[in-house]
């Protein structure tokens, strides 16, 4: 928010807030571009943004919030199942299948890739591989959450228009 000596007339402050919004939108756009460039998100995220409209301007944020709430249960489940000896690879695979599905539905690209890797380790009966990829998945999951929190915060500031564009 720029505070300066120009805030002396309505038209100028409107201009200023318009510029703020334009600046915010550019910020949102560049953050989104970066999330795609770094592989955090895939096309599905854009698909979800395209479902937003004036009546449902925060649909993606709602879905992502739901995802993090729902999937925490699956993660606990995985954690508990990983503590059993010997490992029940079938059960692990089943839980991870669900988790991967939800992750895919929100466009969580890196998380999804770790899920795939985990399932491959399950098929191979590789306990160490499972544990390692589980840890890595949790890192990606947490990192994405932070990024998306920032992104949604910026998007709310910028206003509902023009968030659904395709990054280059």
């Amino acid at each position, binding site marked *: 928010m720029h505070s300066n000596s120009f805030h002396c007339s309505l038209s100028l402050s409107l201009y200023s807030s318009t510029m703020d919004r334009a600046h915010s939108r550019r910020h949102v756009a560049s953050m989104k571009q970066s999330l795609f460039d770094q592989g955090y998100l895939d096309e599905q995220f854009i698909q979800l943004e395209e479902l937003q409209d004036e009546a449902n301007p925060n649909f993606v944020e*709602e879905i992502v919030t739901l995802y993090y709430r729902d999937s925490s249960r699956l993660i606990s489940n995985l954690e508990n199942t990983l503590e059993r000896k010997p490992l029940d690879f079938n059960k692990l695979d089943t839980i991870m299948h669900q988790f*991967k599905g939800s992750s895919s539905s929100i466009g969580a690209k890196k998380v999804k890739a770790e899920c795939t890797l985990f399932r491959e380790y399950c098929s191979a009966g590789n306990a160490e591989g499972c544990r390692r990829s589980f840890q890595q998945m949790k890192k990606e999951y947490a990192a994405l959450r932070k990024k998306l929190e920032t992104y949604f915060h910026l998007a709310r500031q910028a206003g509902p228009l023009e968030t659904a564009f395709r990054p280059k």
Partner: protein
Amino acid sequence: MAAAGNLLSTEMGAGKLHVLAVDDSHVDRKVIERLLKISSCKVTVVESGSRALQYLGLDGDKSSIGFDGVKVNLIMTDYSMPGMTGYELLKRIKESSVFREIPVVVMSSENILTRIDSCLEEGAEEFLLKPVKLSDVKRVTDFIMRGEGKNGTRSLKRSRSDDCTPSLTAAFTSVSHPRDLSSSPPPSIFHSKKSRSSID
């Protein structure tokens, strides 16, 4: 479309398809609901095959057969669900004299040929790969609207567009004729999903 709209409005009220969506994932339920609402459908979402059967009145409670209520024009179900799978739900629906005419679309995150084939074989209209896109839903709902619009019975011919592939016609004919596997064309998902990098 006007003619179809008139026919639909007598059956469905307000010209909208009523779609029953079935998925155990809360996230996916929310998404499919939104996709369907954008596609101008009335939506009922349930979390399991058994709930779906309950909703339809097919859960073995004889007193609910011949009820006045639920009119569903399309069922979209996830394949992998705990308890009753989407395939099992599909079978139950197709075994029902009351509900077998309702088109069923199966959705799955896994691109497994035998799975796809057995669903189409069992009478599914279409098999969609997840994550399901708006274009998929629109294509399916448009198709159902057109199909239902012709004298209230299924049309065995439909115009081809780039989106449509022979499999839908084949699935269509399976309603009245057993599906001839030797002449069956590849499922539509190959046509529309080949470019997806997310398939694994």
